[in-house]
């Protein structure tokens, strides 16, 4: 018996299936392993890979089954003599190593889903508890492991994809810690060929027929599919049974034709996927049923992923080997995962109402799961909670056109209706960039205003001081001397400076062109009050005022008619006329007009987000 690993304690004979245990220098046969069921893992004994820069070789495995399928625990040995475990469950991979528990592990009857442990600075949460059935061993193992029956496992995950298992197969629980790994990251060589007749024949597609109605059936994920649904008679069949035992038959009001036909192949993220299953799930909130479709996609090496569709909105969804960290985002609940902050959007109870095709689980119409959706547009993070496990998945929004292109579907995708939870806003970023342009335009406006103020003439044309006493009976109105306004058609600023104190004055003014008789008639009130009260000193109004009048060149004079309260004391005031005075009001008006487009863009963004959140359960509190 050749050994690949010097530290192996147990091995199996490939020919006679004997289980051999090393005792000193001898090999002792302790039993025989039954023929292992065929499985569809691409890994085999002798496969080689690299983990964190260290080459490893697969030397043995333990195979388990449970009601939700089966998985392999591949025993891997590194070239430095150490060994670990590569779990392969439905093409999702975790590597872990036997670790001394930082604290006493709870006994099997005290472990529960959602229980948390703080180990090595990471918060591990129990995501599933599995009572598995030992199916056999193969190759070299670091300990004696044979003749087992039912074994309890608790799987734990962290927010950063660390992985742990508490193994209750022995007298004392064992702790294995590690992390989830991607298939491509392990750089496998010497993998099992996946196109062998043996594997294809695991459930021979050509030979399958529905035992309920005789209709032909196809299974595209042999070794992974646990149930298959006959499209003709709606029987749900046990795909792990060679006779395809009918598990149940469901009633549906009408046959539903998936928008993407089963068997369609497409490419997502550069990998080929085939649509193998379809289900409709329905929520029933306030007697308003709402349904969405889920397409199950399969790749022999990359495993499963999903396309979900609701009212023409699509999401490319993959399960994630992590438990996102729950946080508070303002008043709303939230989650943190891979550096992104997600906001809780809704919680719902979803019921499976229609199934078609094949599934790597026991499909069942009427199955209910609690779902929590968190969004960080364009991503959606969903936690699906069943009695035994919590499965987290991450979705990325896709348009119908992108899906149609990825799967080479004929025609056009149905138009999307409404706004979906994680649909990217078509206006996102527009408001921000428009405000950036606005800021630049404001800078130019300010610079322009400074230049205008610097180059404007503002020549004083006339300036004279007058006195006025309301108590005199003489005619109050008078005209000034004629003054000349030169240059191009521009303006003059008529300003009034008074010495009013707790009083008002009103000036009826007319700027009259001496030659044409054309006049500009305007009135200005000047008032100034001040005093002191319990709040301290106060003032109101101003002693000065001015008005800008656009005028053509020519000779002008001012008609002035001051008014005051009859009992008021006299005042002194100065009238000044200046030529070519910039108007600050025009710049302010320009600033206001420049603000209109970015304000509109901001409103459009807010309106889109408002409509998005009207569909959420959590506008205020979780």
């Amino acid at each position: 018996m050749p050994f690949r690993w010097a530290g192996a304690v147990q091995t199996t004979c490939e020919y006679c299936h004997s289980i051999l245990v090393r005792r000193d220098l001898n090999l002792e046969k302790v039993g025989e392993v039954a023929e292992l069921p065929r499985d569809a893992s691409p890994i085999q004994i002798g496969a080689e890979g690299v983990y964190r820069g260290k080459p490893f070789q697969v030397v043995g495995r333990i195979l388990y089954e449970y009601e939700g399928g089966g998985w392999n625990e591949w025993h891997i040995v590194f070239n430095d003599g150490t060994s670990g475990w590569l779990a392969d469950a439905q093409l999702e991979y975790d590597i872990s190593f036997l670790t001394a528990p930082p604290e006493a592990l709870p006994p099997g009857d005290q472990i529960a889903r959602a229980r948390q442990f703080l180990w090595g600075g990471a918060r591990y949460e129990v995501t599933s508890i599995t009572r598995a059935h030992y199916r056999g061993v193969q190759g070299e193992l670091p300990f004696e492991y044979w003749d087992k029956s039912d074994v309890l496992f608790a799987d734990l995950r962290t927010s950063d994809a660390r992985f742990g298992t508490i193994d209750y197969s022995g007298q004392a629980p064992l702790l294995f810690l590690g992390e989830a790994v991607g298939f491509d990251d392990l750089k496998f060589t010497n993998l099992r060929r996946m196109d062998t007749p043996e594997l294809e024949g695991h459930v021979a597609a050509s030979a399958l027929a529905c035992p309920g109605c005789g209709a032909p059936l196809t299974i595209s994920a042999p070794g992974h599919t646990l149930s298959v649904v006959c499209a003709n008679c709606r029987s749900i069949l046990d795909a792990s049974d060679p006779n395809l035992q009918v598990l149940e038959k469901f009633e549906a009001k009408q046959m539903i034709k998936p928008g993407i036909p089963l068997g369609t192949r497409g490419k997502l993220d550069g990998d080929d996927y085939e649509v193998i299953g379809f289900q409709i799930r329905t929520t029933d909130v306030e007697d308003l049923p709402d349904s969405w479709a889920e397409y199950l996609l399969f790749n022999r090496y990359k495993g499963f992923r999903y396309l979900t569709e609701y009212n023409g909105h699509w999401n490319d969804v993959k399960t994630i080997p992590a438990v996102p960290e729950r946080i508070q985002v303002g008043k709303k609940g939230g989650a943190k995962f891979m550096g992104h902050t997600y906001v809780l959007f809704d919680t719902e109870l979803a019921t499976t109402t229609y199934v078609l095709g094949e599934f790597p689980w026991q499909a069942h119409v009427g199955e209910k799961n609690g779902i929590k959706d968190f969004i960080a547009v364009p991503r959606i993070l969903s936690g699906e909670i069943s009695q035994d496990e919590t499965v987290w998945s991450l979705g990325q929004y896709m348009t119908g056109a992108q899906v149609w292109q990825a799967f080479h579907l004929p025609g056009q995708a149905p138009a999307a209706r409404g706004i979906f939870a994680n649909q990217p806003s078509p206006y996102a970023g527009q408001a921000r960039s428009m405000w950036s342009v606005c800021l630049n335009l404001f800078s130019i406006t300010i610079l322009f205003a400074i230049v205008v103020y610097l180059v404007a003439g503002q020549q004083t044309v006339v300036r004279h001081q007058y006195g006025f006493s309301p108590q005199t009976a003489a005619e109050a109105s008078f005209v000034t001397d004629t003054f000349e306004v030169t240059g191009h058609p521009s303006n003059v600023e008529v300003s009034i400076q008074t010495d009013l104190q707790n009083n008002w004055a009103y000036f009826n003014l007319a700027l009259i062109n001496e030659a044409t008789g054309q006049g500009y008639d305007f009135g200005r009130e000047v008032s100034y009050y001040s005093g002191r009260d319990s709040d301290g000193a106060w003032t109101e109004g101003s002693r000065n005022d001015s008005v800008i009048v656009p005028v053509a060149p020519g000779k002008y004079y001012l008609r002035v008619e001051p008014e005051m309260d009859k009992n008021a004391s006299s005042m002194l005031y100065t009238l000044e006329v200046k030529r070519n005075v910039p108007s600050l009001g025009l710049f302010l008006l320009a600033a206001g007009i420049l603000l209109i487009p970015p304000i509109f863009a901001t409103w459009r963004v807010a309106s889109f987000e408002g409509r998005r959140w009207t569909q959420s359960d959590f506008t205020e509190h979780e």
Partner: protein
Amino acid sequence: MRHPIYAIYGFLVLASVAFAQYQGWSLTHVNEVRNIPKTVRDNPGAYRSVYAGYYRYYGGK
């Protein structure tokens, strides 16, 4: 540049402001009166301003 239409809009607004500044326009309202008799110069009291009798605010705290 992103938003070229907005940028063009902005420059048109600024060009309008430049033109208005050159023309001496302002936002204050004055009442234009034509054919004011030349006698006003000799008899200012004979002219009746359109603002005569305008409401006055008797301010103060």
